[in-house]
């Protein structure tokens, strides 16, 4: 049967914050262009929905771009690109204002201006919020606003399995309709990846089921390097057991972290956060918690050792008004009402600083291929992201990628039909073989669990040569075992086992890039902390890491210079 091929001017993969913002930017740049937006879930299910705390942009009199810029550079442990950061801080307020015009119910001050709150590593209140359901409101506002543009054609519940590239130019994607199991070619004169992060490579994560690093793997396999993958952010406050996030806004609103002796350990001992205390950056606080636990000052619970996040002094009224979701989540998922008792928490995998290597336009090394949002590494976040910068990042760089993709698409032809069909036919054959694979000794859930376990033991908050090497070896073996999985579900219709098998392969790619880059970086910087190399080493490692896909072997790891600027690297102390 002939493979169906559909054409758009711009194809966007992903309907989260970054994908929707890109689609709107394209629609605004040129209303004549048709946009295909492919998403493996309906857009409002994208994981942007779960973001809680807020989005950063200069808003107050006592703030300025210089301060937001420096906070971000310092937060990144000087691995953020300073041109990117300067552009970001300038665009941020405009983007959040647009979101306001599009209906986002930002929380307000008495005078009707937008309210801002304190956040970790930010030197003043610059995090805009809509109580503590910011991602939810942002995503729904963007999605609803996008509905006014008829030229945005959605392909919901369709899973992109491959980028169709011809002579170094991207021509479209191969997309499997989950509903009927049919693979289609969706062609575009430019393609934007906005597929989100890869937190599911770890066992204990704030990320939802869909965050399997698909776009990272798609680009990587097509030849684009993944950048700075070793930097994985642990958020200090996840609920033990489920990993559900308790937002940093809980500390931004005045919450304390306490150990089993009820000490505010960030104040009592020197963990580098200085007077910022609970509002220090995430990498430092996560390390402090692990050290407290190792020193025997953790509390013992059903899911291992934990610390307490104490909000009891804030009072019911404030908790209900500012952080109602924190209360809702902790009552529901850990049976604690934070008005009355402290919430048990422990560091949890939250965010990938690394991702598809792009320049400031979101452009990758493949012509016509762009990436934005968490799947991309535009190098805003460097070695450690500041909380509330990434929602804004989705908007600022989603919009820019959209506009740049439009410019690119103007000067490019459609490419060869025969070549794309040949590639798509190979995809059909590959997927059919996988769907019908009844022989094999491996189970998807088992391999996923083993991958998760090795990532936690080798690439956790603290790392060292031996355990990282062990992870690399385990991943090598898992890669081979992947060829031996068998599937039980042979149906074409909504076959989630088939999707899970392909997601697992994507996760393995991402995990391997994380572990391999981590081994090579023999220093401690931002979220990458090695016991065997406890200090930052600007002499040898003030550069980005790049992991290049090598068929049949581990990635080749290279480097890329950091774009410095007016802020000279200095010791990171608060």
């Amino acid at each position, binding site marked *: 049967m002939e493979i169906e091929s559909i054409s758009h001017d711009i194809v966007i993969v992903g309907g989260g914050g970054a994908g929707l913002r890109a689609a709107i930017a394209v629609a605004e740049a040129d209303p004549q262009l048709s946009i295909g937006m492919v998403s493996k*879930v309906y857009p409002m*299910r994208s994981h942007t929905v779960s973001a809680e705390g807020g989005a950063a942009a200069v808003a107050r009199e006592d703030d300025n771009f210089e301060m937001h810029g420096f906070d971000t550079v310092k937060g990144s442990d000087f691995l953020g690109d300073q041109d990117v950061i300067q552009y970001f801080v300038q665009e941020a307020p405009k983007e959040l*204002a647009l979101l306001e015009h*599009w209906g986002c119910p930002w*929380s307000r001050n008495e005078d009707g201006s937008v309210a801002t709150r304190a956040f970790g590593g930010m030197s003043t209140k610059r995090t805009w919020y809509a109580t503590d359901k910011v991602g939810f409101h942002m995503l729904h506002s963007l999605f609803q606003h996008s*509905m006014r543009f008829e030229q945005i054609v959605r392909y919901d519940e369709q899973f992109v399995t491959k980028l169709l590239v011809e002579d170094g130019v991207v021509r479209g994607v191969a997309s499997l309709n989950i509903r009927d199991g049919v693979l289609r070619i969706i062609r575009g004169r430019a393609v934007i990846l906005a597929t989100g992060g890869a937190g599911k490579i770890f066992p204990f994560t704030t990320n*939802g089921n869909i965050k399997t690093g698909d776009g990272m793997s798609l680009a990587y396999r097509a030849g684009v390097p993944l950048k700075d993958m070793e930097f994985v952010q642990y958020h200090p406050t996840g609920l033990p057991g489920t990993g559900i996030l308790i937002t940093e806004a809980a500390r931004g609103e005045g919450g304390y972290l306490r150990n089993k002796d009820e000490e505010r350990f960030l104040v009592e001992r020197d963990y580098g956060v200085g007077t910022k205390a609970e509002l220090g950056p995430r990498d430092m606080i996560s390390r402090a918690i692990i050290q407290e636990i190792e020193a025997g000052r953790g509390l013992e619970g059903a899911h291992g050792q934990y610390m307490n996040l104490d909000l009891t002094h804030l009072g019911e009224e404030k908790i209900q008004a500012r952080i109602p979701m924190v209360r809702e989540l902790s009552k529901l998922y850990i049976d604690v009402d934070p008005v009355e008792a402290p919430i048990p928490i422990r560091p949890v995998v939250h965010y990938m600083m690394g991702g598809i290597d792009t320049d400031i336009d979101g452009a990758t090394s493949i012509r016509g291929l762009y990436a934005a949002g968490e799947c991309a590494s535009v190098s805003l976040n460097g070695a450690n992201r500041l909380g509330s910068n990434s929602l804004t990042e989705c908007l600022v760089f989603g919009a820019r990628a959209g506009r740049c993709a439009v410019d690119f698409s103007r000067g490019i032809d459609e490419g060869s039909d025969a070549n794309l069909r040949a590639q798509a036919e190979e995809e059909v054959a590959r997927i059919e073989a996988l769907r019908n694979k009844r022989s094999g000794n491996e189970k998807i859930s088992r391999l996923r669990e083993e991958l998760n376990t090795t990532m936690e033991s080798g690439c956790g908050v603290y790392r060292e040569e031996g355990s990282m090497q062990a992870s690399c070896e385990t991943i090598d073996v898992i890669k081979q075992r992947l060829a031996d999985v068998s599937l*039980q579900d042979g149906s*074409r219709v909504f076959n989630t086992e088939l999707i899970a098998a392909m997601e697992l392969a994507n996760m393995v790619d991402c995990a391997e890039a994380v572990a391999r880059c981590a081994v090579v970086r023999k220093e401690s910087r931002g979220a990458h902390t090695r016991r065997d190399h406890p200090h930052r080493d600007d002499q040898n490692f003030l550069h980005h890491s790049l992991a290049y896909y090598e068929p049949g072997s581990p990635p080749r790891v290279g480097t890329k210079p950091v774009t410095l600027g007016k802020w000279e690297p200095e010791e990171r102390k608060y």
Partner: protein
Amino acid sequence: MSERQKKTFVITRFDPDTDEVPKTESYEIEVEPYWKILDAINYIKDEVDPSLSHRWSCRMAVCGSCGMMVNGEPRLTCKDRLSGYGDTIEISPLSNFPVIRDLVVEMDGFMDKFNQVKPWIIRAKELAAEDGPMRQSPEELEEFKQFSMCINCMLCYSACPVVANEPEFLGPAAIALGHRYNIDSRDEGAAERNEVFRGEGTVFSCSYANECSEVCPKNVDPAAAVNQAKFNAVIDWATGLVISRDGKE
């Protein structure tokens, strides 16, 4: 670790590739007392029967994917505690929707209803980014806030007796969303939406059953939205009449 307990899940299965009609399958598994319904279904999918299809993602009651009928009631399964149920629990796809496969229902019709109410800010003059944010008082925000909390989980459509008889009915969540924009101080599009609301199969089809608000996992209270929308649509129409009788615009 707390003690595991045995429970039996009777799950409705249907694969249009092979089945003429839905059937049920029983799974006896050991559950942790703190689990939600979704945890048990995920366990079955991972460990017992990987061919089971269901939707889920966030597991924190905000993405809206995981609605199912649990013992015949529409529930958000990542929020629904197992401990509240007996030894045997029946799970089936959300009612009032066509079934695609197992626990997965067709939701394109539901999505189309959102487009109908123009769920975006409508203004005579659009603002530019440089204009900065508009002002809105905390009180003005409070007016519509509750109606902006909908996670599109579709439980209210499953519970609604009108949807059951009249699948084209705009339904609770879509009406609540249109109403949310109508009463947002930044919006100027109420006249357009009220016209939609006065059409067939919208607010006046509602029979005040209130089931929607009872099942809503986010306390959106869509029934209240429908009532207010009804009232406003009438007033708007009546004022329109008065104005046109006066010969003014």
